[in-house]
């Protein structure tokens, strides 16, 4: 198990005081802090791939971190596509990576 990326004792900013909760990503059970953005909880678990480009399927992750770039769109069960960098994590959330669209929708012809 890799070490979490959380900064536990920040010399100037102190500690985060949030409750640990559970959620799933692509079916895998994970833990995060209540209220932190989904993308942050995933990053703390070393998960960077949040989406596949709709047409090419290339991997995408967090880019701007403040809701401008739309790169971190994930599928949140019951809500549809949300920006992982702005959406607060709640207990029991079921999240999946944003997926590549089927060829029938994009009209893509794979060479």
């Amino acid at each position, binding site marked *: 198990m890799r070490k979490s990326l959380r900064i536990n004792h920040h010399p100037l900013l102190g500690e985060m005081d949030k409750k640990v909760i559970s959620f799933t990503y692509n079916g895998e059970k994970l833990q995060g802090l209540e209220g932190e953005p989904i993308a942050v909880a995933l990053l703390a678990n070393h998960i960077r791939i949040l989406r596949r480009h709709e047409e*090419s399927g290339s991997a995408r992750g967090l880019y*701007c971190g403040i*809701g401008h*770039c*739309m*790169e971190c769109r994930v599928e949140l069960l019951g809500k549809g*596509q949300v920006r992982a960098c702005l959406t607060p994590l709640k207990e029991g959330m079921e999240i999946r990576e944003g997926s590549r669209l089927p060829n029938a929708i994009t009209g893509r012809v794979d060479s």
Partner: protein
Amino acid sequence: MRHVNEGYIVCRCEEVTGKQLEDAYLLGAITSRQLKMKTRATMGACQGRVCRQLVNLWLSKKDQCADKGVEPLSYRTPIRLVTFGELAGEE
């Protein structure tokens, strides 16, 4: 000589490369708006918040005389992700 690398992506949302901008330019798309129409750069999910600056910068270097004030790209509602539910006033 400048290090030329036009094969990589400029518009992340629509996966438009520098090469595609170059090709469109050579075909006569010489303003930001024309480049956008031709290549779809700036027309993706972020609505150009990321690459609009790049397209303008690229163009200004292509054409040193280009006036940055000429034919700027416009903005249209909605400028943020909004669901039909939210439009209908759902919580």
